[in-house]
């Protein structure tokens, strides 16, 4: 479709194909949910929506840039309140725009690919760093729309350019770059998620990890496509698309929920929350569902994508050569570690924030979120249900998109059927419940928590002493100790002290440091030695 406005002589071109159709379908619930939760009269809100639609529907580079421009302008208009951070943001946005424009007008080559990657990565980081937690004065629904919209459109641009526009010239190492970037983002984001105290920052870390897993899946697909392995490419693209669907549904759900928590309690710091499940049970249940998506547990909306990604990695290791297989092995270990960290983050979000005792009076007095909020969040959760319970059907619906991205994609049945597992678990739980009702003691008795024998708290501490229950930071403390300075990149010990000591004593000192090192460091060291030794072996073989 050609519009008459636009570049002189050319106009603007809009088009829709399965890929842009999918991303429009992902943007629509986000916009709808945000509009339900916090109806915005601001023009900028709808200009942003228009910009995302233009970017996704664009059939030429100019329209895409225009859509991006509308989005950025609207976002800055909504969120900026001056100050040096604003200038920094404008600079960062200019950088992103520069990279993207460069990538779009350069001939398809590795330079364009790297610029695109840089631009999309910077764009996503900006969306998360700037809008989560929302800046002062910006309501959570608007912030969720800005972050979610920018992330979705960035993902769309990445997939569109790397697989469709540059599709013919892609090399195998492009996939490697994307894969490495994705795995690094996954580890980094998951570590942030498990250590952050603010719910929004925790969710931003989880979103970085989720984007990293999508990028890793896309990298595998790119690699497999270049190596002429359409089956593996199909598997990986399916993983990336399901990950994208999940990202667009349950991440905004959690952001909107965090906004409702902030509205009810005035804070989102896990160290000040607790016991919200009693005051806001409906919101708590919805957040629990969203958190099961972060944790990528079976029957949750995050599991199908992870399942396919892990299977793609295993299939890649089984099908590739020796060195590719070793690389996939390292990747698998990294993914396993990141997934475990994400599970810890999700458990911490629910267990510390929503269960337990209140850690402040505001948390104790929290009331259920209003109807609109619950409807908006519930709408997103309802849309997650097919992803969680019928991923096979969803994959069948995504066939045209997969065929567009991977020409000649074979039809792969999904060997994961959550519905029978759910029925089985329900049957077991139901049987246990009926059996216990029938043969066990009836009813239950309410009493103050046993609390290791401390019994009922004194009258002036109605929820017990907050100091006696684990805090958000306390829960994460063992993880922090194991991660060491991976958790805090700034806190690396300075090298100067070690270098000023004579060599033999330096060795001793290294030994002592190794002895004291955190577990993550030792594991990383051992893995590094492995990889270096293998690389040396490889080089020796090459000669």
């Amino acid at each position, binding site marked *: 479709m050609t519009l008459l406005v636009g570049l002189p002589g050319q106009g603007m071109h809009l088009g829709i194909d399965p890929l842009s159709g999918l991303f429009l379908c992902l943007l629509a619930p986000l916009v709808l949910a945000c509009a339900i939760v916090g109806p915005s009269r601001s023009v900028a809100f709808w200009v942003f929506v228009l910009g995302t639609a233009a970017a996704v529907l664009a059939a030429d580079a100019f329209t895409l840039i225009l859509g991006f421009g509308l989005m950025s302008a609207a976002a800055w208009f909504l969120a900026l309140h001056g100050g040096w951070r604003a200038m920094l943001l404008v600079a960062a946005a200019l950088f992103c725009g520069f990279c993207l424009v460069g990538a779009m007008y350069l001939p398809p080559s590795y330079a364009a690919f790297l610029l695109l990657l840089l631009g999309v990565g910077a764009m996503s980081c900006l969306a998360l760093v700037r809008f989560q937690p929302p800046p002062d004065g910006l309501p959570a629904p608007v912030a969720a729309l800005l972050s979610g919209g920018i992330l979705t459109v960035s993902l769309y641009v990445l997939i569109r350019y790397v697989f469709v526009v540059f599709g013919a010239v892609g090399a195998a190492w492009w996939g490697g770059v994307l894969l490495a970037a994705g795995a690094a983002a996954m580890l980094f984001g998951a570590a942030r998620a498990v250590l952050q105290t603010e719910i929004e920052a925790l969710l931003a870390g989880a979103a970085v990890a989720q984007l990293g897993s999508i990028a890793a899946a896309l990298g595998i697909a790119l690699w497999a496509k270049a190596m002429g392995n359409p089956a593996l490419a199909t598997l990986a693209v399916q993983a990336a698309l399901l990950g994208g669907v999940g990202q667009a549904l349950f991440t905004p759900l959690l952001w909107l929920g965090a906004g409702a928590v902030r509205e009810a309690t005035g804070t989102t710091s896990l160290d000040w929350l607790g016991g919200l499940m009693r005051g806001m049970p409906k919101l708590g249940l919805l957040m629990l569902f969203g958190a099961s998506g972060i944790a990528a547990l079976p029957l949750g909306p995050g*599991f199908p994508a992870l399942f396919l990604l892990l299977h793609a990695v295993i299939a890649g290791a089984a099908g590739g050569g020796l060195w590719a297989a070793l690389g996939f*092995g390292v990747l698998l270990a990294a993914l396993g570690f990141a997934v475990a960290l994400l599970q810890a983050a999700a458990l911490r979000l629910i267990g510390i924030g929503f*269960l337990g005792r209140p850690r402040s009076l505001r948390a104790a007095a929290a009331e259920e979120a209003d109807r609109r909020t619950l409807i908006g969040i519930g709408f997103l959760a309802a849309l997650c249900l097919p992803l969680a319970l019928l991923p096979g059907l969803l994959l069948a619906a995504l066939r045209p998109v997969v065929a567009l991205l991977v020409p000649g994609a074979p039809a792969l049945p999904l060997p994961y059927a959550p519905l029978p597992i759910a029925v089985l678990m329900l049957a077991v739980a139901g049987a246990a419940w009926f059996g216990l009702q029938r043969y066990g003691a009836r009813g239950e008795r309410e009493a103050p928590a*046993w609390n*290791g024998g401390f019994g009922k708290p004194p009258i002036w501490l109605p929820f017990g002493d907050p100091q006696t229950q684990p805090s958000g930071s306390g829960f994460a403390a063992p993880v922090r100790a*194991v991660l060491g300075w991976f958790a805090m990149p700034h806190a690396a010990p300075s090298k100067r002290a070690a270098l000023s000591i004579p060599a033999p004593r330096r060795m001793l000192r290294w030994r002592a440091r190794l002895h004291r090192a955190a577990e993550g460091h030792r594991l990383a060291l051992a893995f590094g030695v492995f990889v270096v030794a293998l690389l040396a072996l490889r080089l020796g073989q090459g000669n």
Partner: protein
Amino acid sequence: MLGLALGLLATILHAALMFAGAPLLVGAAEKLRARLLGRRGAAVMQPYRTLLKLIAKVPVVPDNASELYQVWPFVCPAAIAAAALLTPGFCFGMAGAGQSDFITFIGLLGIGRAATVLAGLETGFGFGGAGAGRAVLFSLFGEAALLLVVLTLALLGHGVTLDGIGMGLRRGHSGAPISLGLALLAVLAVALAENGRAPADDPAGRQELAMVQNALPLEYSGRFLALFEYAAMLRLAVWLSLIGALFLPFGMADAGMVLTWPLGLLSWLIKLAGFAGALVLFEIFVGRVRIFQVPAVLAGATLLGFLAVVFLLVSRGLGA
């Protein structure tokens, strides 16, 4: 049609034996441990009596618990029971064989762990919280180790389902036995930590400060506690059956051939008894390590898993 019916029958038999026999396994292990330590020990049937006693008691619910307090005890055994139905016990080719993907299996055990951890955080008291933090800590490295083991087994057994891997390994494999051994060591480390056994935890420990797995349901009583205890017993049986089916698939029956069932049942029994005995011996001779050394053990398991992959690939590369 007959195959389907036999598969269903085998599944029902497997489920009945697994669900009914899990407490017996723990009881026998406890009896053996007591004997080896020079005590007479409780009867082998003691776990059943404990469960019945708990069921007969009216549970005490903390007044600051949320509505979900009574949901976690049902989620945990349900997830582990689903995993139990996917695990090959005495035979391959049960009704759930097509769904018995290794990654789904890991995820189901993860649901069980998550429900237990959330139950520990439910009332917000110190011991439960500390236990939850430690349980989460132990799970960090276990997942990576387990995934590397899945990779090794998938490469060796040419399958990704528990059934497929076991059947592939039973037919014989071309890879180095050393990879299989390393993978077994990694799985054992993860299984011990997941089940709250020595070196990670002490299942018989009664001191709250030192507990990990036992600290989580400290606020639970009556039938809810019985469900958690039963889930722990079932989990041990599942892990031991899994190790037996994957690493020692000798004598396993085929669901389609009824005549092989007795041998399969017998070998399952012998394997479980042998594993339980080995576990008890190991626990007698190996003490607990400090809590912050458990991640070291599991990180070592991750490295062993990676070594297994490396050995396998290198030997395959040399062979080709």
